[in-house]
């Protein structure tokens, strides 16, 4: 512990896990310390939509998937989910969900839709549809 914490100045015996320490399981422990999605370098937008791959096998046979990976897969099973919804549903920070989704994407478990780039965004037909849809709510 001393080797990893040169600033360990706290008195011996005092509790180190005070309120400032935050959650006792550091969120990035779930990602093996990674803070970015894997080599594909994809950044998932909050509204990127995540769909289970049709051919995705059950989760039981892959021991490399952690419980959080499985939780995300289960959340996507009933219907397509946005990254933001997955983070709220799994009660994980968005950054952690992005890393885990990167794993799932690499394993072919999910497909992730990219939001429309801003330059193409307001296709007039779609905007009209949105306005009419809002009026009809």
């Amino acid at each position, binding site marked *: 512990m001393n080797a990893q914490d040169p600033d360990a100045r706290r008195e011996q015996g005092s509790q180190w896990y005070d309120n400032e320490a935050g959650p006792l399981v550091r969120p990035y422990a779930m990602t093996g310390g990674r803070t970015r999605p894997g080599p594909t370098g994809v950044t998932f937008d*909050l509204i990127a939509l995540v769909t289970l791959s049709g051919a995705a096998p059950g989760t039981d046979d892959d021991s490399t998937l952690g419980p959080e990976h499985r939780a995300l897969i289960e959340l996507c099973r009933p219907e397509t989910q*946005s990254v933001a919804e997955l983070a709220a549903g799994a009660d994980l*920070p968005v*950054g952690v969900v992005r890393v885990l989704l990167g794993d799932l994407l690499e394993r072919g478990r999910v497909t992730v*839709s990219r939001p429309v780039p801003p330059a193409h965004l307001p296709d007039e037909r779609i905007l009209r*549809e*949105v306005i009419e849809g*809002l009026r009809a*709510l």
Partner: protein
Amino acid sequence: MVSEHSDAFDGDNSALALKILVAGGFGVGKTTLVGAVSEIKPLRTEELLSEVGQSVDDTDGVDHKVTTTVAMDFGRITIRSGLSLYLFGTPGQDRFWFLWDELSQGALGAVVLADTRRLEDCFPAVDFFEHRHIPFVVAVNCFPGARAYGAEDVARALDLDQGTPVVICDARDRDSGKEVLIRLVEYAGRMHTARLLDSVG
């Protein structure tokens, strides 16, 4: 790259999600507005400062790592199967500007909520969207007891670019919230068309 997934990215039939931001000062009613129009109870997502804030927070000389959690509230409106609007209440604290940058990427537009008793609270949001050319409307949330101002007074007080819509609203009211969103989408469409014409001519 993940070229094998590019079809899923760009296919015409793929589901489409649009993003609208709701910004404004602390306590102005952002989450209330999101909740009034959302079909789901507003959800909360959290982002960790230690990941995204590295280049922003000057931590020189700080010998312990602080992980601050920043919350965002969001809601959803399904227009039809395969077309949804997502509304994000942006964090009110100025400290978390960096989150807005990411949030605003690809956003259809923004609603800047204003309270006429504390109009200056929405200045940062107005600046932010003006500088990034993100279409926005100013929605004046009518709090009980606040003096009623006209939309034009507010537009002048905020020194808005000409054409930026100002809507008087009640953030608690679903129909009022819907009207704000409709005005925004109409305005975003006009802005985009104007920009397209500019780029051609």
